[in-house]
C-alpha cells in the first residue's frame, strides 16, 4: 500500500497472505468462508498445483510470527469465468473463526458500488517509500465510476464492466505490487463488504491513475455456487 497508514492489528481479519510453501508472500486474499479464500486469478499463475501455495490467516505482520497465526494448505484452485481476475482457493481444512480471523461479507450479485463511496484497500505489498513496510497497511480510496475512469484523463477506455476503479485524483494512495488479490471493502450498514479484488494499475499511486479492482458483485453467484458445489 502506498500512502495510507499502518492498520490497527487484526482490524481487517479477513485479510490473508498468500504464500509459497516455503513462506514467500506474493499476494493477498480475503477469507469469505471458513474454508474459502478469494484472490486474484493472476496470483495463481505461478503454479497449477494447489500444493505450491499456503495461506496465512490472523497475522498482522508479513513474517506472520504471531500467536494468532493460522496456516492452511490449499486443496483446490477455481478460476472465475470470462477471464476475470478472480479465483477461489479452497483450504484443506476450515480456518478457526475468532476475533482475529473472520470472513468478510460478499455483495449481492451485480450490486454496483455508488461512485464516491469510501472504500478501503489493505495489504502487505510495496509501500514505495511510504511508511509501514512489513505490517498490514490500509488506505481509504473513493470509488470512481467507470464512465469517468474510462475517460481520456483517466484510463482511456481500458476498464471493463467487471472491473471497478478506486483512487484519488492527486495520487499518493493506492495498492501496489504484492497487494494483488487482496480486498477492497466498503462499509455498509455497519459491516464491511468485499467489493473488489486488487487487480492492476498503471504504476502505483500516480495522479489520475486509480487502482483497478475485479468487481466481486459480478461473480457473487459464481462464488456462492462454487462454494456450495465443492
Amino acid at each position, binding site marked *: 500500500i502506498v*500512502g*495510507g*497508514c499502518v*492498520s*490497527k*492489528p*487484526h*482490524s*481487517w*481479519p*479477513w485479510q490473508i497472505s498468500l504464500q509459497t510453501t516455503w513462506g514467500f508472500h506474493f499476494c493477498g486474499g480475503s477469507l*469469505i*468462508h*471458513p474454508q474459502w479464500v478469494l484472490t486474484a486469478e493472476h496470483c495463481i499463475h505461478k503454479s497449477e498445483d494447489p500444493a505450491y501455495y499456503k495461506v496465512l490467516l*490472523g497475522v498482522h505482520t508479513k513474517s506472520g510470527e504471531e*500467536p*494468532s497465526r493460522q496456516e492452511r494448505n490449499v486443496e483446490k484452485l477455481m478460476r472465475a469465468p470470462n477471464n476475470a481476475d478472480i479465483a477461489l482457493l479452497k483450504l484443506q481444512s*476450515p480456518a*478457526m*473463526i*475468532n*476475533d*482475529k*480471523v*473472520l*470472513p*468478510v*461479507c*460478499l455483495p449481492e450479485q*451485480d450490486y*454496483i*458500488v*455508488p*461512485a*464516491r463511496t*469510501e472504500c*478501503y484497500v489493505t495489504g502487505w505489498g510495496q509501500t514505495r517509500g*511510504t511508511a509501514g513496510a512489513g505490517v498490514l497497511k*490500509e*488506505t*481509504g480510496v473513493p*470509488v470512481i*465510476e*467507470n*464512465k*469517468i475512469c474510462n475517460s481520456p484523463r483517466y484510463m482511456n477506455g481500458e476498464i471493463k464492466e467487471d472491473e471497478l476503479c478506486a483512487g*484519488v*485524483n*492527486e495520487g*499518493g*494512495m493506492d495498492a501496489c505490487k504484492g497487494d494483488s488479490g487482496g480486498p477492497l*471493502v466498503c*462499509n*455498509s*450498514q*455497519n*459491516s*464491511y*463488504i*468485499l467489493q473488489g479484488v486488487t487487480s492492476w494499475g498503471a504504476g502505483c499511486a500516480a495522479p489520475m491513475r486509480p487502482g483497478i479492482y475485479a468487481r466481486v458483485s459480478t461473480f457473487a453467484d459464481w462464488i456462492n455456487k462454487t462454494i456450495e458445489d465443492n
Partner: protein
Amino acid sequence: SGTEVDGYTKTEGAQILSLQRRQYSVNNVAECAAKCDTETSFTCRSFTYNQRDDGCWTAPDNSKTLMAQRGKSTMLYEKKVYLLECTFGTGKQYRGTKSTTKTGKTCQRWDERYPHTPNITPEEYPRAELESNFCRNPDGASEGPWCYTTDPDTRWEYCDVAICPDECMHCNGEDYRGRISITEDSYTCQRWDSQEPHSHGYDPHAFSDKDLVENFCRNPDGERRPWCFTTDPSKRWDYCDIPRCTTPPPTIAPELTCITGNGETYRGTVAVTKSNKTCQSWSSQTPHQHYYLQMYTCKGLDENYCRNPDNVAMPWCYTTDNATRWEYCDVPRCGDTDEPVTHPEEEDCYEGDGSSYRGMTSETISGKKCQDWSAMIPHNHSYTPQNYPKADLRMNLCRNPDGDEAPWCYTTDPSVRWEFCNLEQCPTNSTEETPTASPNPQTPSTAVPPHKDCKTGNGETYRGPTSITTKGVTCQAWSAQSPHQHKSFTPETHPDKGLEGNSCRNPGNDASGPWCYTTDNNTRWDYCHIPNCVDSKCGTPVAKPKRCFGR
C-alpha cells in the same frame, strides 16, 4: 398504488380503441407498460389497462391522434414523450404529430419517394422515429424539426413547432433540472435508479444533491454538458442537447483568498502549482494542448489562475513545464491554522462530546449517508465550512461543530434532516494496543467468544446456552440418566467438551453440529439449531479499523 408507470400520464376511466391495437393478457399495469415499451408492430404511444380483468391493449395512437373514449374500469396510459408538442434546443427529441411546415405546406411521408426523393430515410435513422409525415429533426438541423413537403417546388421546410419554456442550462449544465430525456443522438435515457441495461455507480441516493430523478439528462460529474445512460445496450451514455439559457446564470459568491470544499468557486489569483510550477494560461495551447476554455465557458478560466472547472479535488492548472501536463495548486484552505491537530485522528471513536473528532466516518447511526457540509441539498443549513472554519467540516464527514452530544451530520435522506453518527466513544481506560500495556504475546487468541450463541464449523467448540432441539424438545442434562441412559458422553468421559447442564454440545465431533439427549421418551437424541456465527457477523471486525485516508 402500483398503478403509476414512469414516463406515462394516466387518465382513469378512459380508453383508446385504435384499429391497430394489440391485445395482451397481463397481471398488472407494469406488465402492460412493458408490452408497450417493447411493441414491435407499431410505435406504441399508449396502452389501456382494464383493472377488472387485467386486460391490456397497446395502441399507436394517443389522445392527440385519436379521441379517447370513456371506458368502464379502464385506465389510459399515454407516453409523455409523444404528448409533448414543443421542442427543446434543436428539437431532435421532438416526437409530436405536427405535419405542416411554417408556410402551411403539408409534409411528405418519410417513407415516400414522391414528390421528393429523400436522402434521409427511416432506415438510415432508425432512432429518429421518422414516422408518417410528422415533423422531425433527424440530422440536428439548426432551426428545429422539418419535413420534405408535398409541394413539388419546395423540397423541404422547417415546421412551426413551439419552443418548450423553462428548459435551458447555464454553463455546463450542472444546474440543469429540466425534463429532457432523449440524447443528442436520439437515444432514450435510462432511469438513474435503474441498473438496466447499463449498470452504473450514479446512485440517486448517493448523489442526492444532483437531482438524478427519472431518466432526465443531468450533469452529476463535471462533464461538458448534461448526459445520461441510454436504454440502448450498445450505447452506454450520451450527451444531451440542452439549449443555453438567455438569462444570466445565478450569481455565486466567489472565493478569492482561500477554498472550501473542492474549490469550485475559487476565483483568486494563485497561479503556481504545489511544486511551484507556473501555470499555463487557459487561453494558450502551449506547452499543453487542451479544450478547457471551449468546454467550460463560465468557470472563470481567466489568465493562468488556478481553477477547478471539472469538479476534481481542488483547483489546478496546466503547467508551463513541458514535462508536467497539469498539477494541483497550493491554494490555502479557509480556516487552516498552523495549530497542531491534537485529536485522535486515526481512531474511529470520539472523546468527550466529539467536538475534536476528525475521523472519516460519514454514516449515521441508522446507516444513512451524510450530506456534504458544503451542500445545501437535500437540507439547507448554516453549518458551512465558512461559518465554522475551525470545525473541520470537510466533505460529508461526521463532526460536532455545535457542541452537541456526539458527532452528527445532515443526511442525504430528504426525510431525515440530521442524525448522530455511527460512532462510539473511545474507551477511557483502554489498554488495547497501547504501548504502555503489557499484553502477553503468548496468549492464544480466543477460539470462540464464550457463550456466544452461534457456532463455527460443526460447532465442536460451541459453549452457548441453547438447550432445545430442532423439534422444540428440551434437552436432557448430560449428567442425567433419565429418560435416556447413556455412557458415551458424560461430563466425566468428556471433561473438556463443556457438557454442563443440558445445553446442546458436539462432544463427538458430529459433522452435522451440536445435539443433545432429549427429555422426550420417544426421541433419544436430536440435533439443535444453532445459527452459524459466520452468517451473522461477517465483515464486522472486533478491532474497529482506523479507516485511514491520509498520506
